[in-house]
């Protein structure tokens, strides 16, 4: 668990989790694409501007799924085992993410509800680009041992 994050039990409704910043550079996108394709370098709308333009896009865009991992990792930092076993994420991809974007992973406590012998903390989460635009928004939650 990250030493820079508070214990989730110390957070209440309206509290913001300190954000983390992640670079969505070309190299990161291509590494992710290699993972998806089993190690191959392929030209597609996510890795090549020309291919993207032929598909009607202004330029290459990142996949939506890729940076959801940034949310998952941030919440694993926050909840620890309570995210790996019990975590949930629901997000909508509302704006494109372009190579070179910087994404801030934000999370704000919405509410906490009892769940068995634990507490489920629900947060509003978002990926916010360098222009302050929320590109991915939704909710996520993790379990806190009482």
């Amino acid at each position: 668990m990250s030493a820079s994050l508070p214990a989730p039990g110390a957070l209440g409704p309206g509290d913001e989790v300190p954000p983390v910043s992640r670079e969505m550079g070309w190299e990161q996108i291509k590494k992710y694409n290699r993972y998806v394709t089993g190690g191959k370098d392929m030209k597609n709308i996510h890795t090549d501007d020309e291919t993207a333009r032929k598909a009607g896009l202004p330029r290459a865009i990142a996949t939506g799924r890729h940076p959801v991992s940034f949310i998952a990792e941030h919440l694993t930092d926050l909840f620890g085992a309570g995210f790996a076993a019990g975590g949930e994420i629901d997000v909508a991809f509302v704006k494109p993410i372009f190579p070179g974007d910087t994404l801030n992973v934000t999370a704000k406590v919405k509410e906490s509800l009892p769940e068995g012998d634990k507490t489920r903390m629900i947060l509003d989460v978002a990926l916010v680009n360098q222009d302050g635009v929320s590109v991915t928004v939704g909710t996520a939650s993790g379990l806190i041992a009482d």
Partner: protein
Amino acid sequence: MLKPEFKWESIRVGQVVGERDLTVTPEMVAAHCEGVGTDRDWYTGDSPFGGPIAPPMIFMNDVLQIIDESFQRFGTIHAKSGYRFHRPVHVGETVHEKVVFKDLYVKREKGWMVCEMEVRGKEEGDLIATYLHTSVLSLTRKHGEETK
């Protein structure tokens, strides 16, 4: 045999898209970690669950891979995603993945498709994770209308 195109005429709610067994290897975990830029110790060494576990999002691309095994997919607009992580998967563990079309609906004159992938332990059959994937498809027929 030619695979059908991935469009409204080709899919039905409740249809099993595909299923497969998959063993989570250290190489798979390493490639995922490099792709998403994480180096958490749990993924290569000890974890609170006893030994290395895979990142929770390790299966995130498998929905589309399984769809692509059955259909010719020419690109879809991924609109929403949902994930439920019931327990972590250990590195070296074999899981069973099953993808089912859960919903088809029309919104803003576009056809929307929701599919769900359940990931279960191969040995115990217990639920490890659920991935929900919502995409916009080109609307070639109205929902409920039979193809002529």
